[in-house]
Structure formats: C-alpha cells, structure tokens
C-alpha cells in the first residue's frame, strides 16, 4: 500500500491522529466498554440474589430430649447436638475436607466421615484423615420458650457450653 499524498485523512503532523485511526480507536474502545459491561452484568445475573434454601437457624427442640453424655446427629440439618455433664454444644456435621455428612460411631466414641476417612473426637478436633480443620462449633442458645437453637451459618471461635 503506497502513501497517497492527496489523501485528506492522513495527519499533517506526526502526533495528530488520522480520521480513520480515530474511528478505529472509538470502535475498539466502545466494544471494550460493552464487553466489560457484559461481564459485570453476566456475573451479576449468574449470582442469585435470593436463595430458596432452608434457614440456617435450626430449632433443635427441648434440652431434655437429649440424654446425658450423648451425641445426636440430625441428618436433615447436618448438626450434632452434644450433651456433656457441663452442658450443651452444637457441632457442624459437615466434614471440613470436601463437605460430606459425617456420622457418630457410639462404640468408638468418635465422629467419622464416610467419604475419605477423616475422624474427629466429640469436640470436633481431628484425630486423623485429610480434613484440614476441626469440625466447627456452632452458635447455640436457648429460645424464650426453652428450646435449643442453633445458627448453622455462625461458627464460634471460643467454645462455650449452653447450660440449662
């Protein structure tokens, strides 16, 4: 392609932009803006704003349903309600490795995961297996009508027992 001296869209000075270059830059720029906007809208569209999932707060019933020194698993809500001599606490039953539902083995006194063999004691502390963290303690309190309540979305760092 040879340069035509009569062409009007070539710049007179080197730092001046030609008409064609200007429109190319405008076009590329607007496509880039549109692509960015589409990415943002796409991400927002794909993240649901309302989840029709079960509530994280569980009513675990009256404390005297749980015999002394017991570990009770509710598979529907995936929590253990554990009663010791001192009081109650709630433990998440979801293995910290890859999210399987663990089970309590009463004869061994441990919590075991069927998927990849992690084992925990009744405090949620890992005994063996690939689990990277102990089973989290969940916030537990007594409701006004005397029921044990557990918030599954709220793991507590300081272990506290609910005394009844």
């Amino acid at each position, binding site marked *: 392609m040879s340069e035509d001296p009569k062409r009007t869209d070539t710049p007179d000075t080197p730092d001046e932009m030609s008409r064609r270059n200007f429109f190319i830059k405008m076009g590329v720029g607007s496509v880039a803006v549109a692509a960015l906007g589409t990415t943002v809208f796409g*991400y927002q569209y*794909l*993240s*649901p704003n309302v*989840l*029709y*999932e079960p509530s994280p707060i569980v009513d675990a019933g009256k404390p005297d349903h749980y015999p002394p020194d017991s570990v009770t698993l509710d598979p529907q809500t995936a929590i253990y309600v554990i009663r010791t001599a001192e009081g109650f606490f709630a433990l998440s039953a979801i293995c910290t*490795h*890859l*999210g*399987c539902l663990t089970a309590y083995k009463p004869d061994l006194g441990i919590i075991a995961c069927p*998927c990849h063999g992690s084992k925990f004691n009744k405090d949620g502390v890992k005994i063996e297996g690939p689990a990277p963290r102990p089973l989290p303690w969940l916030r537990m309190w007594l409701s006004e009508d005397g029921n044990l309540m557990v918030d599954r979305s709220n793991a507590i760092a300081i272990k506290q027992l609910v005394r009844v």
Partner: protein
Amino acid sequence: MANTLDQLVEQVRENRIWRSIFRSGTGASNLHRALFVQQNVFLHLFSVKARKRTVGFSATWYLGAMTFGTFLILVITGILLMLYYHPSVPQAYADMKDLQFVVSSGVFLRNLHRWSAHAMVFLVFAHMFKVFYRGACRPPREFNWVIGVVLLLVTLLLSYTGYLLPWDQLAYWAVTVGSNIASAVPVMGSKIRFLMLGGTAVNANALLRFYVLHCVILPFAATLLVAIHFWRIRKDGGIYAGEPAIEGKSE
C-alpha cells in the same frame, strides 16, 4: 439383477432433484469423488484425498472416529432422554426411575447413554495417547492438539454435569465433593462454587444449572470444537502419516 439396481441408482442420481442437491454429478472419476467431498457441507471439513496408509487401521486405530461415534450416540440418546426428564428436585429422581422401569426402551436408552459416556471418556484418553506416542501432536499439528485438550476438558465436564442429573445419593455427594474441590481455588474459590451451584448447597438451582450445562452449553461447545478439530486435520496436511524413515520401511 445387480445391473438393473445399478441402473436404478444411476437414474436416481441423474434425476433433476438429486442433481439440485448434489452438484458433483454422476461418474466415478477421481474428480467426481473429490467434488463430492468438497461440495458437501459436512464432508468438506475433510480432505478430498488421503494417503492410503492414513486410512488404514494401524495409523489411528480409528480412536478419534470412535470417539466421535460415541458422541453422536450420546447426542441422540440424550435428546430422547430429555423427553421424559424434568430437571427439578421433586421429579428428577422419579423420572430417572420411570425411564428405567416404565418407559418403553427407556432402560435401553439410559444404559446406552451411560455406557457411551464411559466409553467416550476412555476413547478420548486412548486417542490422545495414540496421537502423542505417534508424534502426531508435533508442528504443524500443535494447535489441533491444544483444541483436543480443550475437548478432553469439555468431555470431562459433560461427564461431571451428567453425573448429577439422576439426583440420587451417589450424584448428590459426588457433586458436593466436586464443588468443594472447586472452592479450593485461591481467593475466588467460594465464589466459583456459588456461581457453579447457584447457591450455597447442591440444590434446585444446582440441578438446573448442571442440566443446562449438560444439555445445551457443553454439547454446543463440543460440536463447535469438534468441527474445528476435523477441519484442522485437513489444513495441517491430513492425518499424520509418520516419519519418512518409517515410511520407507513400511512401503
């Protein structure tokens, strides 16, 4: 008898309607055969001519062709299974059981779909080993190898998304584990899991998302990539025929 059949075939091929569809015309010359391939929308992805040893069994063991064959079986049986399957929490498992026990030939189609899926994953790996150890992934075919790797990924994702759809215990826990593996990605792991499942747990949204991925997005991506994969074979000089030194020995 054979003569009259040949004449009949010839008559059909001379027919105006036939000629309006297949432009290459009758005749068995190399030119006619080449034109037949070149002027067909599907066949034109392939070369009009191939070296004899590349179409023999030993060059490819037909692993790529068999992979494509299982893909076609999966598309056809999958579309048929879609006619009885609702991707919803109350119905998915029951529909799968209906396909097994109530729908005529349902169990055959479901098993065909399942076994073809297993066979496809096996064949993709076998095809890749064959291509790799023959050296067919070297330049100028390196980009087609890359497309092949993406196709392997699409195949595995198709397997994984299809695994959830029966909505039984095996499916549920497999996808729970799989989506937790995805959440191990640094920084954005839990966000990826949230987008993948459309929620915080494997639930109705996850089932629907996996269904759409399995039945629309991934098959469409696979079809597009397969078309490019085949076309690149032609563009890169046909199926790899082997090193010249090996050629001299075998012929």
